[in-house]
């Protein structure tokens, strides 16, 4: 169970292998890796900079992670989120969940990424040919997070 906020890159394979090896009761490890795309809407992206709120970020991610552990049977879970300047193709965020069965691992992983997209205090500024611009929050992200508010 861990949350990390860092400038440095991370290694999804290392985290998946470490998590799977920790406990012989684990049957399923699910991972989500988010990458910088070179197309956001119509404009080509040169790079983006992720600003965050040090202190609050870690707290929100820990809160989201505790919520996932309360809702699903998880043997382990991990959130790693980078900040700073990132170029297209670079990894931004990693969520890994491990459980005895795939249902819990899939649901919790999806919950974590949906929820952190609307709760974790990160802001993306994109560098385009027309200058820099702040990325607006997507309504689809709000809807994705809201479905976890409904029972069942």
């Amino acid at each position, binding site marked *: 169970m861990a949350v990390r906020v860092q400038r440095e890159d991370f290694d999804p394979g290392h985290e998946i292998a470490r998590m799977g090896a920790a406990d012989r009761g684990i049957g399923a490890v699910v991972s989500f890796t988010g990458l910088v795309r070179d197309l956001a809407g119509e404009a080509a992206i040169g790079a983006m900079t992720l600003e965050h709120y040090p202190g609050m970020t870690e707290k929100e991610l820990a809160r989201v992670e505790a919520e996932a552990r309360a809702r699903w049977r998880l043997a382990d879970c991990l959130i790693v989120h980078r900040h700073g300047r990132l170029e297209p193709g670079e990894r931004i965020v990693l969520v890994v969940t491990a459980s005895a069965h795939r249902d819990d691992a899939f649901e919790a992983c999806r919950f974590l990424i949906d929820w952190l997209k609307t709760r974790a*205090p990160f802001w993306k500024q994109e560098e385009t040919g027309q200058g820099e611009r702040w990325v607006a929050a997507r309504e689809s992200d709000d809807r994705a997070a809201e479905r976890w508010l409904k029972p069942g």
Partner: protein
Amino acid sequence: MKLLYFAWLRQRIGKGEEDIAPAPPAQNVAELIDWLKARGPGYAAAFADPKLVRAAVNQVHVKFDAPIAAGDEVAFFPPVTGG
């Protein structure tokens, strides 16, 4: 009271944080926004459309009717776009 500004609010206001002492005469976040808007054009621009602004008190997301006190850390930012 410690105030923090992020993303385009930080850019419009021209700084990322400031300490205001004595604390502003505001009982809640909404009153604090009104008080800040009167401080200058940068603040007025940052808070021109409060629907685009989110707030946290002591690093917890809150609504604008949340109470605030002198020792609080209050942050303003746009809707988050991480992940």
